[in-house]
């Protein structure tokens, strides 16, 4: 079955990319490996049909996203980390604003930041900034922005309230913009 082998090779060729994708979310090599393995099995056994409408990689990432959410749901049940260190209700935003509610440091104009997309170093800095976020904050943010999961589904999977979810997302964004400012845009690259 030449065609089948060909398809298998093509799917396998995306393994490294899928692993990096899963690792961004799960930050656990074993769990990420399992999610990717499940994805490839589902793809190759035809549990998920490839309709040929999209690129193979896009299709695989689509399957992987579901496997990742399953893994997060499972982790969330196993570990009650509602208040993991750093995810508490620390008033960090108090340092970002003055008493009257104005910016302590007014957000800078990043000019045409999309130019950074062409720079390999930018992605390294972005991943570095993401790695610094507290665990739960990072998880909620990555589900929202990277997997594109709707907020209500994140709430269900992680068993948190929408308000809590918005607070964590807000914190993640504030921390990331500060980190990118310092580590990327201030460097006048």
């Amino acid at each position: 079955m030449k065609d089948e082998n060909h398809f298998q090779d093509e799917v396998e060729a995306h393994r490294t990319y899928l692993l990096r994708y899963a690792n961004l979310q799960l930050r656990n090599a074993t769990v990420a490996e399992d999610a990717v393995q499940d994805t490839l099995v589902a793809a190759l056994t035809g549990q998920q049909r490839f309709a040929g409408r999209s690129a193979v990689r896009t299709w695989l990432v689509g399957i992987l996203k579901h496997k990742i959410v399953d893994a997060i749901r499972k982790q969330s049940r196993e570990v009650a980390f509602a208040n993991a260190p750093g995810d508490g209700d620390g008033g960090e935003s108090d340092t970002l604003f003055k008493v009257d509610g104005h910016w302590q440091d007014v957000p800078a104009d990043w000019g045409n930041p999309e130019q950074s997309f062409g720079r390999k170093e930018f992605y390294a800095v972005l991943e570095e900034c993401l790695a610094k976020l507290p665990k739960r904050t990072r998880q909620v943010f990555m589900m929202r922005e990277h997997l594109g999961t709707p907020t209500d589904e994140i709430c269900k999977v992680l068993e948190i309230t929408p308000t809590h979810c918005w607070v964590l997302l807000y914190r993640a964004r504030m921390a990331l913009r500060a980190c990118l400012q310092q580590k990327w845009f201030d460097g006048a690259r």
Partner: protein
Amino acid sequence: MMSLRSCREVSALVSQGLDRELGFGERLALGLHLQICKGCRGFSRQMAFLRSALERLPEDDPQARAGAQST
């Protein structure tokens, strides 16, 4: 009279606007504030940039893609 929102409140609204549909009053307050506040406009653009940056992760590995295409 509608109360003016502080930058602190507006930054939270900008963020929530990425996650839920804002109410009419919220959108109005947000729009008014952004018109007069350069800092919050910058913040709003930064948030949009952050979203598009995350969509690009992980950075495409040119080798893997070339490998996939050559098969």
